[in-house]
Structures are given as C-alpha cells and as structure tokens.
C-alpha cells in the first residue's frame, strides 16, 4: 500500500506539470472583496444549486455578525477580509511571468525530494492542486467505483451526488460553529469528497495534495468524508505553498462522519510556507477539523505533522457519540523562527464506554511559540468513558516558548481521565556527545527530534512517514548553534 501511495503522489506531481503546460486553463481571479454579490458569484461560477447558495448566504450573513476570536495564544497580524480575492481558478502558464522560483524554495524542494516536474509546476504559477487532484482522481475513479467508493472534488460531488452532500455538509461543523467556519461556509472553493459505502474497505490510501498558489488570494477548501457502516478508509493530506512576502489566509473545514463500526484514519503533513527567518510572510492556517463518531464501535484517528505556516490555529476534534467508539489524536507540531502554533484537540465523550487517546509532541525552536490546547469533555451520558492524554514539549534554544492548556470538563463519575505532560530540552551535552561521535549538530537535532516524535510518525502510512521525517530535519535546520 505504501508504494502505491508513493507512485500516486508522484503521479499527481507529474500530471500537474503535464497539464500546466499543455492545457490552456483560463485565468480566473475575481475582484478582491467580500459581499453577498461575491458569494453569489462564487456559487454561480461553480453552477451550484439553490440550496447550496442559500447555505453560503446564511453562513455569510451569520459571519457578518461575528468578530474574529482573540483567545489563541497567538500574535495575529490583522486580516483585511476585504483585500482578499475569494475565488481563483488556475491561471494559464502564459500569464505567469512574474514567478521566478526562489532558490531557497528550489533547495527546499530538492531536500523534500519532490520531483522536478512538481517544481516546474510551481514555477508555472497557479497550478491549483485541487484541480490537479481532480484529474488524478479520474485515473482511479473506475477502480474505486467498482467498490462503490466516491472520491472526487466537492464541486463535482455537489453536481453528481447532491443528496449525499446536502445530507452531510455542515452536519459536523455547522456554519455557526465559529468565525472561520462561517467564513469558509460562505466562500469555500474546493476540496475533496469521499464516500465509502457500507462494508467496503477502501483498497488504496486516498490522498490530496493542497497548494496555495495565486497571490493575494485566500484558500478555503472544504473536505467531507463519510464512512458508512463497517467501512474503512485512510486519507492523506499534504500541503505546501510557495514563498510570498505577504501572509496568506487558509481557512479550511474538514468534516468526517463515521458510522457503525467504521474506521477512518486521517493523516496530515502540513508544510505551508512558514514565513522567512525574520517572520515575514507565511500562511495563516486557521482550520476547523472535526469528526463525528456517530456509530457504535466506530473509530477515528487524526495524525498530524505540522511543520509549516506562520500561524497554525486548529484543533482536529472528535465527537464520540456512538457507544464504544474510539478516537485518537497524534500530533507533532514544530515551530521555528517566528512561527506560532496553538493546536491540539477536543475529545467530546457523549456515548457510553467511549475511549480517546491524545499524544501531542510540541517542538519549539528559534523565537517561536508553540502551544498545546486540548479539551476533554465527558458528558453525563458517557458512562465508563476513558481518556489518556500525554503532552510533551521539546525546546531547542532559550528564546522559544512552549505552553500547555489542557482543559477537562467531566460530568460523569465513572469516567477516567488521565493527563501527563513533560517539557525537555536538547542539551549541549547531548549535542556534544553526538558531535564527538562524528554526527553534525544538524543531523543530531534531526535524530533527536525524530526520536522524540517517533510515536506519532509511526502512525503515518510509511511513505508519508519518510516525508515527515525529512521535513522535521529540514524545518529545524539552522535552529541550533
């Protein structure tokens, strides 16, 4: 399965290149700004049905009543929502003369081992990864369709499977959930839709590679995964973005519905552009991810390796309604230079005998700030609920910060909730020990950090794990000594 996945990703990359230069895709970036007209325009460009336009408008009107929240342990630059373009379809290569690849970026991609074609796709500007993934999905569509699996872009799903989308869209993350959820619901562009029918084990890992490209635009993708009774799927999400001086807004929603005895594994390797070493630019990654374990005996696991973004603010969460359902959250969040992360999870126990596990590893370097924030809530109905949380922080250097905000809200006496936390530092003696054995400081940091994050990395599908390991090393280069 691992090597399937590898060739899959490579195929994505090569396809991007191929289509980027042979097909003349129209450039389509709408005027900056946000209004009801813009929402209507997005909807009409996508040829959406009335119910979806109404959903967007409701969300937009609700969003207008909200203020951007400020409770994160983050120093957020102000976001001018009117200076963003909310719809950008892939531009054709000929309009893309402004984009010379920064040599730094070149080097980064070399280090990541992303094939040449991928890099050329970047140089050719706006190759929307979501568009590219549509073309790839077509390749596998027949193979998946044999089993009744639907894997397509959400826009396509709206057209071809409107009942499914209508039933589940907003059922896990309603547009009233929070400020960014309302914004996304109003303007979401594209993303993936997955439906695994009853009793089907998805034969391959489903993967989407997201990329922000166009300048001055936001990315508002929307992913919806429905895993029916006794079904199984492993879904992978990878993210990169080109380097830009200005901050770019990324406000996505991921909704997952897990039915009786079904199992979903959701893995993310997030490497949005983090800004430069002075803290200039970078992606503001403000995402709402939530899974609803509706069915008895259902399982959901979130695994995330977060190395990118100037600001990461997200809590992939689980609502454990089904009796005996089990949820896991495995996270490595790395911050370097001026990056900031306020991330963690929420485990909401509603059903009886539900069980959740939280393993969080924060790594801070440079002048960065890294916070774990988690909520374990046990409702009065959650007889016999169990949670185990372990939150570790690793500090590199003395100018960074690690913070832990664990919240517990327990309303049932039979629940068992455990929390452990540690903070450690890579010591000069450890580095010297490695150096004395001939291991350079950078390699030593990479060894130690990968060792520290092993528990989480091991949860990733193999090819992804290899990528994540390299990424950890690259993200922390220059952070010591």
């Amino acid at each position: 399965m691992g090597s399937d996945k590898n060739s899959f990703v490579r195929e994505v990359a090569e396809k991007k290149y191929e289509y980027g230069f042979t097909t003349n895709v129209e450039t389509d970036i709408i005027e900056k700004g946000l209004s009801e007209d813009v929402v209507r325009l997005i909807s009409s460009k996508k040829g959406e049905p009335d119910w979806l336009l109404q959903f967007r408008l409701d969300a937009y009107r609700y969003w207008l009543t909200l203020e951007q929240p400020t409770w994160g342990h983050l120093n957020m630059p102000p976001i001018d929502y009117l200076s963003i373009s909310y719809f950008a379809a892939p531009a054709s290569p000929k309009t893309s003369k402004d984009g010379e690849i920064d040599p730094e970026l070149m080097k980064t991609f070399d280090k990541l081992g992303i094939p040449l074609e991928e890099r050329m796709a970047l140089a050719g500007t706006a190759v929307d990864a979501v568009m590219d993934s549509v073309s790839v999905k077509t390749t596998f569509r027949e193979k998946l369709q044999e089993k009744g699996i639907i894997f397509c872009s959400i826009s396509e799903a709206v057209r071809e499977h409107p009942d499914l989308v209508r039933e589940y869209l907003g059922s896990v993350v309603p547009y009233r959930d929070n400020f960014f959820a309302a914004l996304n619901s109003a303007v979401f562009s594209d993303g993936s839709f997955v439906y695994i029918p009853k009793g089907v084990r998805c034969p391959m890992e489903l993967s989407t590679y997201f990329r922000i490209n166009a300048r001055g635009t936001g990315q508002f993708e929307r992913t919806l995964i429905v895993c029916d009774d006794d079904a199984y799927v492993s879904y992978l999400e990878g993210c990169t973005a080109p380097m830009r001086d200005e901050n770019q807004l990324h406000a996505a929603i991921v909704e997952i519905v897990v039915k009786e005895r079904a199992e979903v594994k959701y893995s993310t390797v997030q490497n949005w552009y983090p800004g430069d070493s002075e803290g200039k630019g970078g992606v503001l990654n403000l995402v709402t991810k939530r899974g609803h374990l509706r069915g008895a005996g259902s399982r959901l696991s979130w695994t995330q390796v977060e190395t990118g973004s100037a600001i990461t603010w997200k809590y992939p969460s689980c609502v454990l309604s089904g009796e005996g359902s089990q949820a896991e959250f495995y996270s490595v969040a790395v911050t370097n230079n001026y990056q900031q992360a306020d991330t963690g999870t929420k485990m909401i126990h509603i059903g009886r005998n539900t069980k959740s596990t939280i393993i969080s590893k924060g790594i801070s370097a440079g002048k960065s700030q890294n916070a774990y924030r988690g909520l374990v809530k046990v409702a009065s109905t959650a007889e016999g609920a169990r949670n185990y949380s372990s939150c570790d922080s690793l500090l590199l250097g003395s100018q960074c910060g690690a913070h832990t905000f664990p919240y517990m809200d327990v309303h049932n006496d039979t629940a068992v909730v455990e929390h452990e936390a540690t903070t450690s530092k890579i010591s000069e003696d450890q580095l010297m020990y490695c150096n004395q054995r001939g291991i350079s400081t950078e390699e030593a940091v990479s060894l130690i950090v990968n060792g520290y994050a092993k528990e989480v990395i091991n949860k990733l599908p193999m090819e992804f794990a290899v990528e994540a390991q390299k990424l950890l090393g690259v993200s922390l280069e220059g952070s010591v000594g």
Partner: protein
Amino acid sequence: MLQINNLHASINGKEILKGINLTVNDGEVHAVMGLNGAGKSTLSNVIVGHPAYEVTEGSITFNGKDLLSLKPEERAHEGIFLSFQQPVEIPGVSMVNFMRAALNAKRKYQGLEPMPAGEFLKLMREKRSIVELDSKLASRSVNEGFSGGEKKRNEIFQMAMLEPTLTILDETDSGLDVDALRVVAEGFNKLRRPESSAIVITHYQRLLDYLKPDIVHVLIDGRIVKTGGPELATEIENKGFDWIKEEAGL
C-alpha cells in the same frame, strides 16, 4: 600523532589549563593522573572540541593537522574518540540509529558510501559481543536506563565500531565494580589496534593494571608536573600525590 604545546584553556573565564605540553606517539598508552579539579577532564574536553571551553593560548596538532581549527565532528572523523566520564542519555534515539549515523558520517568524510544495512548489523553484533553488551541494549535509546557499567561498556563498544586512532578514556573506571572494570578494560585491550594510541585519565592504579601505560603523567593545577614510566602510577597508589606537589614546589 598528538602534539600539545603550551595549551591554556578556560571555562567561564576561569583558567583551568595553564600550559600543557604533551606528545603521544603511535601505539603509545599514556596515563594522566591527578586529583579532582586538576584539569584532567578539561584536557579531554578541549581535545575533542567541547564548545564550553575556550582555548586562550597554545596549539594542538593531530597527525599534522591543526586540531583547534576543526569542528568536534571533524576531530572525530580524523580519528579521535572520547569515552565520556558521564555518557549522556539521548531519549528516543536507538543505539542502532545512532551508531549508523555516526559510522556513515565518518564514511562520508572519508568519501565512502554508507555501509549497507546487513553489513552494519553484522558489525554491530560482532563488536557488541566483545564487550559483552546485551543485544537488547542495542535496540534501546542511547544510554537510556543503562546501568553505570553498561554505559561504560557502551562507550568501548562505540570505540570498537568507529576504530579511532586516538582514544581518550576519561575516568572510565569511575562507578565501576571490579568485574565491570575487568570487562571494560579487557574489551578495550582486545579492541585496540596496535598502532592506535590512548590517553587514560584516572585517579587510580586499578584501571592501569589492565591497560599497562607506557608513560604516566601527573596533572596538578593545570600543569603536567611529573612524567615517568608505569612505576610512577604504583608510587602514587602507595604514597598519594602530596610528595609530587612538594617536589614541584606547589
């Protein structure tokens, strides 16, 4: 092999080494003895390039190269190995991964390809058995949860893997019982190549009974005040250091 000339070094602005002169030739074993605080560990740390120590004067050449201009890992690649007095624990990093990184870094420095995994594991097994290091320890994190004796054996094991030309044993005998000391010392003797050299830093005679130094130095207050043959170690064992201090007028 190693020439140290008029070496002065300090830590946090305090001068510890006050003009060390020491020459180690190929195949020689030198013992450096002295009381706590004399500067023995400082000397070994300066040779391997510990960043906490500042060299204020003097020079060290190693096989003709200016050692002080090399980074710690380059000194290791050149063939210097320090068996640490207190080997540090590195949680999460398995001995296998650690050794592999170390060995392949050295091979890279020498212009060689990384060692194939099978060959590497075979080498690990071979060298491990010489110091009677349990196979389970190899899959554990570096020094984590190792007993005092296991840590020291692990140091000798690493020496065996990296095949240095100069090994510095910094108080390798400290914290070892008689049996562990024997295993470590005999392991060292078996693993040491005849042309390689060693500097053995110790308080006591007992390690030297096994390692049989060619030359014994006494370090007091940052200077080598007396140098002699193996009999000097025996004399110190019997009479302590005071007579040497008096002799040196300290």
